[in-house]
């Protein structure tokens, strides 16, 4: 049936989703947004020693249009906030945000007038990494968590839409 694909049980739809997820999870291109010392750890994770490219983050994308994962590594000040939001808005769906380090998660030690108290006040965050700064292994774990999350995602069958169809 034609609606079978949208109801979520269909073989074609699920296999197509599997294929898309298979492609997505093997190429999570990061957009490195390093604004503080966490940025140094991120560079370390990207470079030869830890080599994030093993997990498909082969190409740090400095254009938000071609990025899948926004890695926010470091403090966001109130002055930087509109720039950060604009860059997030420019990313194409599906997108994911990794908030790396104490400053990005909660403002960290900078409980001041000029610091944004956590980037989740501005954009939705998928994965938080604690630490000040976190080690590169922590960033790799976050990337693996993103890959696991991708495996479970439904790029074609949107749940709300299928729920609507079941109701009719």
């Amino acid at each position, binding site marked *: 049936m034609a609606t079978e694909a949208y109801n979520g049980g269909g073989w074609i739809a699920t296999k197509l989703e599997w294929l898309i997820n298979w492609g997505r999870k093997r190429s999570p291109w990061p957009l490195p947004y390093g604004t503080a010392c966490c940025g140094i750890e991120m560079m370390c994770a990207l470079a030869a020693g830890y080599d994030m490219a093993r997990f498909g983050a082969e190409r740090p994308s400095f254009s938000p249009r071609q990025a899948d994962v926004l890695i926010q590594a470091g403090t966001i000040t109130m*002055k930087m906030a*509109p720039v950060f939001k604009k860059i997030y808005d420019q990313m194409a769906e599906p997108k994911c945000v990794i908030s790396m380090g104490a400053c990005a998660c909660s403002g960290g030690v900078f409980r001041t*007038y000029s610091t944004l108290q956590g980037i989740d006040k501005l954009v939705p965050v998928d994965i938080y990494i604690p630490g000040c700064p976190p080690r590169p292994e922590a960033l790799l774990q976050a990337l693996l968590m993103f890959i696991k999350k991708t495996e479970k995602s439904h790029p074609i069958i949107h749940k709300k839409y299928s729920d609507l169809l079941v109701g009719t």
Partner: protein
Amino acid sequence: MDLKKRVEQCLGPESLVVAMTECQGDVSVEVPKRRLLEAMRLLRDTPDLGFDFLSDVFGVDNLDLNKPKKKPKKAEEGEGAEAEEPKEKGPLPPRFEVVYLLLCLERNERLQVKVRVSEDDMEVDSLTSMWKAATWPEREAFDMYGVRFKGHPNLKRLLMWDDFPAHPLRKDYPLEGQGEERHLIYED
């Protein structure tokens, strides 16, 4: 001749010296606010001094220093403290200072020039006509303390955003802010 005497010889006859101190070899001179440009020109153009390089401009807030002390230490200092008491009851010194750090590249000498700025009259002459290097530090002092520099070509905030309502480095401004919010507005 040492630097302190030379500066005094240069500025003294014009009665441009309000106060002068030397601490660990660093000479600091306070000049009247109204005649700042005049004093700076003399310091730069007198061949004896030749302070041709402006390293920094910054503000100072002396809010807590100016507060009258609650308990004068009578027990420790005895009669000396009592003799000083009438001085404290005089008018408080102005709250703010603007400090200029000058450097003479030829002789590698440094000089600190101060002007005192009261809260009622926050206007100081800008040094941008003499040193282009003064533009950004003066903007920073305006941003953080609210000192207005007369004659500055582009006096807007340097570090905080334009709509920020306060001057955050003043001592009576709380560290965590007063709940200022940044409203994100995009132009299409």
